[in-house]
């Protein structure tokens, strides 16, 4: 009976009113990560085990004494969401309870690209049947906006301050989906809350594939990026349309699908101007103009590399 009920529910479209990530959690207004997690959970369905590493998602979804998660969920530590998920998967297999079950390991950009990359790499390499979801809001938002390996070039964070001699973060965003793909895993993709249906499609596609999968979802953070809370979707879309955040799928290491931007392409300034963290690029000084040009080049390189035009 229980099994039937589960199967039946899986076939239906993600419910609109009754989400598997319950409302009433403590995310900030306009939080892209909360939206992303809701999309992922509803796309995965109730028969899902979830691990979450330390970060905003863990904190805002489980304020004492409430949990927003309507499935088995565990807060691991900061570095080990993938490893805890690997243990869960192994135990379910050992007990013969791994049929029709999804295992999703998740983390933010810091917990995935920095401190957690060792455990992630091990999980991908060993071939666990797990979907790893990285919610990329491009800095350590939970501790107060420090840079991470996924912070974009020139962004202002509290550890890449802007001043007379500094234009913010001087390193490029780590290409995590390709690092994941380089493990030879069957599926590695990027998505954004700017295009929610694409997130749902990718999660459902990934969960049908056996083996390790990686999905990086771009999730704006109004607090850290400094934009109005009602602009989250708009900002997320602009990131894609400017070419700064390429949306693509890689299967077995090969690029198989991209979201073309074609004639909808927008100049990078539209995306950057929408956020306070890039305000220093618009001072009109020659230095600021030179930095803007570098950001334009990043977009240009993405468009060429992934064939977004």
């Amino acid at each position, binding site marked *: 009976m229980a099994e039937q009920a589960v199967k039946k529910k899986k076939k239906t479209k993600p419910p609109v009113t009754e989400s598997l990530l319950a409302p009433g959690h403590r995310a900030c207004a306009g939080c892209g990560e909360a939206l992303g997690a809701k999309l992922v959970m509803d796309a995965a369905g109730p028969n899902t085990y979830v691990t979450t590493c*330390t970060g905003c998602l863990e904190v805002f979804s489980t304020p004492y004494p409430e949990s927003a998660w309507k499935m088995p969920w565990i*807060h691991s*530590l*900061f*570095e080990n969401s993938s490893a805890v998920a690997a243990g869960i998967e192994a135990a379910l297999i050992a007990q013969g309870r791994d049929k029709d079950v999804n295992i999703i390991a998740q983390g933010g950009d*810091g917990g995935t690209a*920095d*401190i957690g*990359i060792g455990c992630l790499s091990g999980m991908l390499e060993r071939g666990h049947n797990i979907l790893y979801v990285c919610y990329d809001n491009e800095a*350590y938002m939970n*501790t*107060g906006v*420090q*840079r991470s*390996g996924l912070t974009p070039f020139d962004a202002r964070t*509290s*550890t*890449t*301050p802007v*001043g007379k*001699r*500094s234009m913010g973060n001087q390193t490029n965003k780590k290409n995590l989906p390709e690092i994941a793909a380089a493990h030879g895993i069957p599926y590695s993709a990027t998505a954004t809350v700017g295009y929610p249906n694409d997130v749902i499609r990718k999660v459902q596609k990934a969960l049908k594939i056996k083996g390790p999968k990686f999905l990086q979802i771009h999730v704006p953070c109004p607090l850290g990026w400094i934009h109005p809370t009602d602009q989250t979707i708009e900002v997320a879309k602009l990131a894609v349309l400017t070419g700064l955040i390429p949306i693509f799928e890689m299967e077995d290491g090969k690029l198989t699908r991209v979201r073309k931007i074609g004639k909808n392409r927008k100049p990078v300034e539209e995306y950057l101007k929408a956020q306070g963290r890039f305000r220093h690029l618009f001072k009109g000084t020659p230095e600021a103009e030179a930095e803007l040009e570098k950001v334009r080049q990043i977009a240009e390189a993405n468009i060429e590399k992934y064939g977004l035009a």
Partner: protein
Amino acid sequence: MAEDNIKLMQGNEACAYGALAAGVTFFGGYPITPSTEIAEILSREMPKNGGRFIQMEDEIASMAAIIGASVAGAKSMTATSGPGFSLMQENLGYAYMTEVPCVVVDVQRGGPSTGLPTKVAQADTMQAKWGTHGDFFPIVLAASTIEDTYHMTIKAFNLAEKYRTPVTLLLDEVLGHMREKIRIPDSSEVEIVNRIKPTVPPEWYQHFELTATHVSPMANYGEGYRFHMTGLTHDPSGFPTAKPAEIKEKLDKLKSKIMQNADDICAYSEEFLDDAHIVVIAYGITARAAQQAVRIARQRRFKVGLFQPITIWPFPEKRLRKILENADLAIVAELNQGQLIHEVRKIAKTKTRVVGTFRYDGELMTPMQIVDKIKEAHR
């Protein structure tokens, strides 16, 4: 006369500016509440002073980077809290074994595990002593005021350089975040100690030379001296050894370097101890409550005094043993389930009863909790 430079400062700020005054030239760290402000301030201030700030990918890398930086000649430092301090332990042992001066600031929060990121605790007292594997004789300091924090950050660097060893400074969430008045001393008032450099010709140089003080002169990378460094147990030349006599010699050197210089390293403060039959022992932020408690209890005619270890490790046991000779009762107050009390029990004679008063619910100890304990335990 120049006016005093008086500021209102957070503990984490005082720590960052203390480090700058001590001459820190490298910081490698990773964001963690409640220590993050130290990294944030240094990310802004260090480049102005010719220093280098790197946000590392985790605490393992942070600790490793400050070791590398120190060997290359920098005064190096990291700052973290409990979970990060746990991750640093293996590298902390490496720094101890290879005798690399560096400073680790642990702004303690409630534990174990993720614990209470925004709440106060003093529960890393024993981790600072026994966190890494193997025998370990570290130098660990505990600050109790914002002004202390500034000066003890400098002291931590000085001790690290003087004794060629990692030094841990224990702060806590309240100290890290509260604001207090502080007088910033003029740079001429600040004593700075630098590592002893070798004077021998390069071909005679031994990186772990045996000396009378047990501290070996230290050449940095690129100064013309050739040396070997390894986490393996090594002889004075630095190369791994399996000879029992040399193994013992190395471990004795590491221990003696700290314990035979304990009189120089150990710092503590005392109040009302001359006629005290009851000794309150408190350190770090809890010493503030204990100071007030002792005053209240004195008004109530209890003959009580305060002993505040400033150096937690090595524990100032020589002095405390002397003090306890005249005491019937020792009360240890700490924000954990009882850690430093074991050190006091070790040295107390049968005549002195040792009792603890603890708090570990994420809140500060109040003076009245200590006063009540004095009343209750006194008989």
